[in-house]
Structures are given as structure tokens and as C-alpha cells.
């Protein structure tokens, strides 16, 4: 049922979406010079988000067990993420990066960047993770209009910004910092 709605929407605005995407990408590429720079920023944001989010204690095995950032689907970050989190620990937890082709229940991720892949669409992956205490992050630029998880990156004024779906965060038992909410371009409640 969701899929039908989704495909229908895509079908209706396929041209428009394509045009916007092209425009955004052109804009982003011109502003940030290279897509790799954009993702370097996003990689930094990705782990920095963790500093503004509280997970339920049951999400971790122990007080100092690592915080996992999972990339689900195609990895746009390449090595930038690994470079970014090298040596970083958040609230005393070392940050580890894991890559998965598809989302599965109880993967042990605290942050999941859901890019989607031929094997599992982004919407499916998000649906799998729904209800789990996982901060889902998507790249709106890659698939505007689709399911976008809790945090979705957008490009605005040549800068990487984000929108937040707080309702979903609450559903997922995640507490987002007010600072984070204040920095969001848009907060869906």
C-alpha cells in the first residue's frame, strides 16, 4: 500500500523531481566545489548528531560500549566518514562505522545513514528500522519526497542543513536536544 502511493507520487512528479535534483546537485557541486566536500561535511555532521541525541540505555550494552554509525545501502562517504570519526568518542563511547547493504531488525546501530540500494529501497530500510531506537538519517537531496527518517540533510544557500521529524524520533524513543531542533531548517512535529 505504501509502495503504491510512493510509486504513484514518483510517477506524477518524476520530471519535476528530476529537474529539482539536477538543479540541487548542480548548485551543491558549484557551492561545495566537489561532492566529496559535501559528504565530508555530512560525515562530520553524522557523528556530531550523536552529541545532541539521547538514546535509551537499553540501546547500549554498557556505559562505554561503542556507538555504531551504520551506512545502509550505497555508501556516498567513501573514506571521509572513517576519517572523520577516527579517534572520536561521544559521551565516552568510541564511534565505530559499520556498512550494511540492507537494514535488518536489531542491527545494533545507533545512527543509521539510510541511502537505499538496489537490494533494499531507502523506504524499505527505514520501515525496517521504524520503532527501533535508531537515529535514521537520510539525504534529501538524493531522494526528495520519499521517506526521510528522523534527520534529513538538505542543501540550502550552499550549505548543508537538515530537517527533523521529531514525531518519528519520539516514536523511536529518542530524545533530541533542543539545540539540534533549533538548528533544523524545519521540524515536523
Amino acid at each position: 500500500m505504501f509502495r503504491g502511493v510512493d510509486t504513484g507520487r514518483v510517477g506524477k512528479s518524476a520530471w519535476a523531481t528530476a529537474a529539482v535534483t539536477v538543479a540541487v546537485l548542480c548548485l551543491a557541486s558549484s557551492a561545495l566545489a566537489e561532492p566529496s566536500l559535501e559528504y565530508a561535511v555530512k560525515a562530520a555532521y553524522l557523528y556530531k548528531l550523536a552529541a545532541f541525541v539521547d538514546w535509551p540505555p537499553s540501546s547500549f550494552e554498557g556505559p562505554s560500549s561503542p556507538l555504531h554509525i551504520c551506512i545502509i545501502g550505497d555508501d556516498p562517504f567513501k573514506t571521509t566518514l572513517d576519517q572523520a570519526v577516527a579517534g572520536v568518542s561521544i559521551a565516552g563511547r568510541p564511534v565505530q562505522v559499520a556498512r550494511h547493504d540492507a537494514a535488518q531488525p536489531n542491527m545494533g546501530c545507533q545512527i543509521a545513514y539510510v541511502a537505499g540500494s538496489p537490494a533494499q529501497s531507502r523506504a524499505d530500510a527505514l520501515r525496517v528500522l521504524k520503532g527501533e531506537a535508531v537515529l535514521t538519517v537520510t539525504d534529501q537531496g538524493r531522494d526528495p519526497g520519499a521517506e526521510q527518517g528522523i534527520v534529513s540533510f538538505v542543501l540550502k544557500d550552499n550549505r548543508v542543513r537538515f530537517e527533523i521529524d521529531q514525531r518519528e524520533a519520539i516514536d523511536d524513543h529518542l530524545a533530541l536536544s533542543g539545540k539540534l531542533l533549533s538548528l533544523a531548517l524545519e521540524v515536523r512535529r
Partner: protein
Amino acid sequence: MTLVRPARFFDFIPFQRGWEPIRVAAIASAILLVAAGLSLTGYSAQIERSERAEQAQAQARILAASVSGELAFDDVRGARDYLNALLANPAVEGAAVYDSSGRLFAQGARPGQTVPARGLSRRNLFEGSHLIIVTPVTQAGVAMGSVYLRTAIEPAGRRLARYAGVALLAAFAALVIFVLAAAHGALSRANHALEDRAEDLAAANLALTREMEERAKAEEALRQGQKMEALGKLTGGVAHDFNNLLMVASGGLELLDRTENPERRRKLKDGIREAVDRGARLTRQLLAFSRRSPLHAEVVDLGTRLDGIRVLLDRSLREDISVRIVRPTGLWPVEIDPGEFDVALLNIAVNARDAMPKGGEIKISARNMPAVDKDDLVGDFVELSITDQGEGMAPDVAAQVFEPFFTTKAVGQGTGLGLSQVYGFVRASGGQASVESRLGEGTTLTLLFPRAARAAPRAPATAPRAAAPLPEGKDRRILLVDDDDSVASAVEAMLEELGYQVVRAADAGEALTTLDQDQGFDIVLSDMVMPGEMGGIDLAREIARRHQGLPVVLSTGYSDAAAIAVRERVRLLTKPYRLDSLAAELDAAVAEGELKRSATA
């Protein structure tokens, strides 16, 4: 010129002793005040500093916590908003946010202020009155960057104001000290000036004292000279008068021996008596002037008295001088010595006569003066004014007329005692004498006598002396005590004339011996002043002790002795006395003695 002796001066002025500690205390307290103010300011500045530092640190921490999101997600605008909000605090001079790599992320600074281009390591640093705080920005243990904050410990304006307050306080304290010092200085100067002045004053006083002493000496010498001069004048005048009287008396006595004509003898005797009376008057005048003669005050009617004296005046004055007496009826009685009054009036009339060499009128008028209140005169008075038409006197002469020995007459013509007798008599009677005169317009002498409380007794018609019936001695035995043989024999003759049997004693001792041996005396008449240990007063006392009831009459020409006799309540006859008064006094004494004896019996 002047030695400064503060210590002595401080001892001299009582409040000076208290001033020194007060001054020291005042200055000390002023200094303490300043010190306290300064230390309080310093302490509060210290507290303020640390409070400021804490506040700045808190602000830096708040900034760090606030911008963590912005820093994390590159929201420069949001970070700048925070910085701008921070700059609303006037103490904040500059603030900046640096990312984790030390790059300047966002900055806000006041005009003219800059922030470091690179992030600094964490620190709190005072730079003068500025405080620089660098605080790391962390979020969940992740170092996001750092914030930089520079604040003024205290805004310049407020610091200035605070310093101005302290300065004002110090200025006031200094002013207090200055004023105290100035006051002290002024006081010291004033004290020195005062001391100088006191010394000058003492010197002046010394000089003045010396001058006064010299002046007193000079005055004494002058007075002595004046006394000698006055004595010379008096002696001349009195001697002249007495010589005239003696001339009349001795000449009269000599002629008395040479004539048997009763009419002529009577005239001669009258002349002698007149001369003797004048002599007595003269001495009485002298005594009245010296105010040593006791006044025999009686209540008299001035009008009657004036009528009586008119005859005397007519005889004393020249033919070209007329006397007019103006006297209203109903004159109040006055209490005066009638004899002295006669003398005074005669003196005035003689002066008036001498002032009118070409003749004229002497007007004597009397009137009542009710409710006088002038100088020391209060009450009802009778005024007697004597006005002549003579030459008058210059004011400086008029001012001296009452002074003893003052006379304008040639030596030998006047004693200068006439008007001074008038003055002495009027004052002794409780009244006042004044003179009013103008050159060429005559002179008016005004006498005021106090009104007597009693009415005057109806005066018995004054009978001629020779016709007065003498009281008889009735063969009484009298002891006469007198050291002067001539006086004693004269008095003895008078007493025998009165029918007394006289026994004489030469002094008080002899008198007492005689009285002890012979109890048959009726009365004792004694002189008051006698040689020997005992005088008349002592004798009278002794007789009163030994022979109670034996009457004693004393006689004297010496006024001081008379006063003592009056005090001792002893009967007194003042010399010279006449036969009739001698008889009356003795009679009265005997009568009183009999009365006492019968009372004690």
C-alpha cells in the same frame, strides 16, 4: 620683640589644654576615614573583580554551551546571534567562537576591539582591567571548538565614578584636616596676638600705675599747697574778724571802766556782747563748714523765721540795700537748726550785699514744692530762693561758690566759708542748695528743705534776753570741774549769779575724791576735755556708778566730744553758752535727777 611661650599660654587659657588632643584626634580620625575609605574601595574592587571574573566565566560557559550546536553544524549566523546578544552586556568588549581546529568561526566585537584570529588554549587571564576567558565548547564530551570572551572588569565610567567618590571622600577628609590645621593656626596666631596684646596691656597698665602714682603724689603736693593757701586765707580772714571783735570787746571794756554814765555803759556792754556773739557765730560757722557741729534740729515755720531774721538782716546790710520777703501763707514746716538757718541766710545776704556795691534789692521768697523727684531728692520740699540784683557770676565762678575757702573777695574781707556753710547746713538738713547766675544779671540761690512730718510748735514770743526771768539756783550745791582757771572763774561767777554754791575741782580725780568725801552736792558741771586719764565722759560714767541719781552736765566747745556726749546720753552745754541756757540746762538736769531718784526709791 615678643617672646612666644606657648606652654605658658596654654596653661593660662583653660580651653587650650583641651584643644590639642581634640585636634590630634580629629586629624587621626580624618586619616583613618580616608584609609578606611581606600581599603573599603580596594576590598570592594577586589570583590567586584572576582565577581566580574565569575560572571564572565559563567557567560563564557553559557556561550560555549549555547553555540555547541551552531559550531557542530556550522550555523555561523546562529553563533553570531549569540555573540551579539552577549555584546548587549556593556562589560563585554569582544567575543568569538572558534571551531575545533582553532579557526575563527564567528566573532563579535565593539568598535575598535579585535578578537584573536586563532583560537587560544583554555585560560582565564587578567590583562589590566580586562579579563580574557577562553572556554572549550564540548557537547557530550565531543570538543566542538572554543569560545573567547574579553570583558572589562569594570566599565571605565563606573570605575571613574567610584574613584571620583573616593577622591571626593579623600578631598573632604583633606579639607577637614586643612580646616582644622588652619583653625589651629589661626587660633595659635590669635593666641600669640592675644599674648602680645596682654603683654602690651600689662606694660601699659604698669605705665599707667606709675603715672597714677606720680599724679597722686603731685595731687597730694597740690592739695597740701592748696591746704596751706586755704589755711593762710582762713587764718587771715578769721584773724581779721576776730581782731575786729576783740577790738570792740577790749575797747568797750576799757571805756566801761572810764565811764559811770549808765546809758553809755549799756551801749558799751551791748557792743561788747555783739562782738562776742559775732565771735561765737564765726566759730559756729567754721564748725558748720566742717560739719562737726551737731545740728539742733527743730520743726520751724520758715515764714515766721524769715520775719524774725528781717531785723537782723536790716542791721547787717547797708542802707542802700532793701530786703523784700515774699512768703505765702500755709508754708509747710521744715525741720532745721534755726541758728544755722539764720547764719546761712545772713551769709547769703552778706554775699548779695557785696555783689551789689551800688545798692539794690534782695528778694527772699519761699514756696511749697510738692512731690519733687530730682536726683536724690524725693518727696515734698519747701523752696527758699534769694535773688540779688548784683554783678552776677561767670559760670566757672558759680560752679565754685559752695567750695570751702573759695572767695572772690580780697584777703581779709571774707573767709570763703560763708556759702560753704550754707551748703553744709542745707545738705545736713536733708535738702539741696543750688546757684543760678549770669554776669550782669544777678544771682539766685535756691535752697530746698524737706517738709517736716510734724507741725511747728507755736513759737513763744522772743523776749528780750535781759528781761528773761532767770531760774533761781535755790542755794543748790554744785561741783564745777574744769582745768582752765579763767574759764572756771567765769563760769563760777555765772553760777553764783544764778544762786548756786560752787565747789571747784581741777580734774576728774579731784572731783571724785570731793564727791566721796562730801555727799551734799545737788549737781556736777564738768568740762569734757581735761588733762589726765579721765575725761568728762569717764567722770560722768563713774559718777553714775558711784553716786546714782546725781545729775551731771558736761560742757564743751569741741564738737567731736559733743557727739560722744550725745551718744552717751549725757546732758551737754556747748560753749560758749549764756547765762539763761546754763540756768535752763542745770534746772532740767536737776529735775531729771530728782525724777530718777524718786523712781528708784
